[in-house]
């Protein structure tokens, strides 16, 4: 042990001297460092280590007949009735905390880049050795046709089919049917007759849809013009009168820093298209989900349900995130514009995303779909299988709508004509 001031102590550092950051590199090393690929950003590895591809056995009796019990949101062994569940990812991976300290783009393992479009995975049944095919575009389980074991895809696949987390169904099939029936029964009178005839809500399907759930910290800035009314007066011109206004014009700028927790965006391109040619906005409307209750991936949660594969990467969805952050910022600054009673016209805007964290999730939706042949439109009635929020698109009978519009129009025109005649 050396005492202070002994010869082995390093000399005190001159505070003005440049900081030495390692030995100088050779020219080749410097060039190699300059050409190197950028280091991948920080990521969260959320693979469920306790599971492997193949059979998920009940820890109590060893049966593979494990599936989700909707009423509890837990997994149940159909053989011995043992119930189990996976851990919530919120606490397991600390997803709800430190959003304001996020830097860069943090991507969880299951939200990583999709590098393959191969949907079909061939698995060897660990029960009997047979080869079983799983079409991961629609399902994450298959039953071995030889030994009847349920085979599960639990390992990460390069095609984006295995997410980081899954939010189990809570609403049962019967409850979803009831919600859809109630929704449609309020919209009977002007519904297309063929839709009414073919309406079978029992055909509702439980689907796990892919979403990316994002935490982000951002600062949004806006520049525009606002007007404050200073005077209002009325001038008479013969029989008529006109109201005039005077106003002060202001240059307005606002900025706000904020964090968002669990912003949810569609992870499948087919669902992310919101133009008028689809009814995807219906499925979008049943958001949000209680994503805080999502659990670590275990494909046994998907037994009996279908699923849709994610096919959008984080890079594809960065513009969507920025767009939504700009909208959120605009809603946050609106409260500070009260003095501009003639309104504000925003002319330019900017968002700086300080950091974002992306987690892929399967979220549960009960989906009733109806294909309208004459318009080639696929109509959905969707039920959020956690909150029960229901939204739908019911095909209309155009001639009935026109008849109603014509009747109301004629009635109003009659009143208007009568008023004119009565006061002339």
């Amino acid at each position, binding site marked *: 042990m050396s005492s202070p001031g002994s010869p082995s102590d390093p000399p005190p550092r001159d505070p003005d001297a440049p900081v030495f950051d390692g030995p100088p590199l050779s020219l080749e090393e410097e060039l190699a460092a300059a050409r190197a690929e950028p280091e991948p950003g920080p990521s969260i590895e959320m693979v469920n280590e306790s599971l492997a591809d193949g059979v998920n056995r009940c820890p109590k009796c060893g049966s593979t007949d494990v599936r989700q019990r909707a009423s509890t949101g837990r997994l149940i062994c159909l053989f011995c009735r043992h119930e189990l569940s996976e851990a919530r990812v919120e606490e397991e991976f600390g997803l709800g905390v430190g*959003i304001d300290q996020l830097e860069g783009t943090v991507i969880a393992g299951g939200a990583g880049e999709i590098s393959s479009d191969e949907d079909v995975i061939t698995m060897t049944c660990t029960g009997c050795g047979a080869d079983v095919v799983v079409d991961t575009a629609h399902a994450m389980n298959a039953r071995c046709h030889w030994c009847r074991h349920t085979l599960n895809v639990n390992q990460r696949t390069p095609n984006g089919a295995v997410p980081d987390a899954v939010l189990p169904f809570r609403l049962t099939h019967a409850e979803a049917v009831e919600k859809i029936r109630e929704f449609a029964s309020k919209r009977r009178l002007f519904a297309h007759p063929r839709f009414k005839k073919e309406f079978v809500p029992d055909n509702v399907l439980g689907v796990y849809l892919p979403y990316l759930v994002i935490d982000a910290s951002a600062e949004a800035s806006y520049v525009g013009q606002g*007007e404050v009314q200073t005077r209002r007066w009325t001038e008479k011109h013969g029989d008529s009168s006109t109201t005039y206004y005077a106003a002060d014009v202001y240059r307005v700028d606002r900025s706000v820093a904020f964090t968002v927790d669990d912003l949810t965006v569609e992870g499948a391109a087919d669902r992310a298209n919101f133009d008028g040619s689809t009814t995807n906005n219906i499925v979008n409307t049943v*958001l949000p989900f209680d994503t805080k209750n999502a659990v670590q991936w275990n494909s046994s949660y998907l037994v009996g349900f279908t699923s849709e594969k994610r096919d959008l990467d984080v890079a594809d969805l960065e513009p969507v995130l920025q767009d939504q952050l700009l909208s959120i910022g605009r809603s946050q600054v609106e*409260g500070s514009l009260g003095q501009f009673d003639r309104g504000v016209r925003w002319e330019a805007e900017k968002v700086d995303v300080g950091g974002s964290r992306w987690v892929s999730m399967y979220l549960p939706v009960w989906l009733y779909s109806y294909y309208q042949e004459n318009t080639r439109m696929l109509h959905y009635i969707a039920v959020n299988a956690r909150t029960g929020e229901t939204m739908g698109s019911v095909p209309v009978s155009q001639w009935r709508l026109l008849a109603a519009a014509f009747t109301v*129009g004629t009635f109003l025109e009659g009143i208007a004509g009568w008023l004119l005649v009565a006061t002339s």
Partner: protein
Amino acid sequence: MIVDLAHVVVMASDGVPAWILAAGPAGGAATYWALYRYYRNTDKSHAYERDTLIAAQPVRGSQEKVDHISRTRDSDIDGDNKSQHRQRVQRLT
């Protein structure tokens, strides 16, 4: 009858204004559009501005008077988008 009605329209400036005759077509169109939206819900989407957990710092900003309008018939500013949060404007980088 039509001639009578036209006469009434021209002479109606003292009582009910003539544009009230637009009530029929306007009411019909409004009925069609309201029913259509109730059935098809084409205007609905996830209200993420409201339904997401957002923690915002206090809003910062300033305003500076740049002009004065001394006489206008417009009751509000042109292109008011204060409440249209999803209407994108020029993006600054």
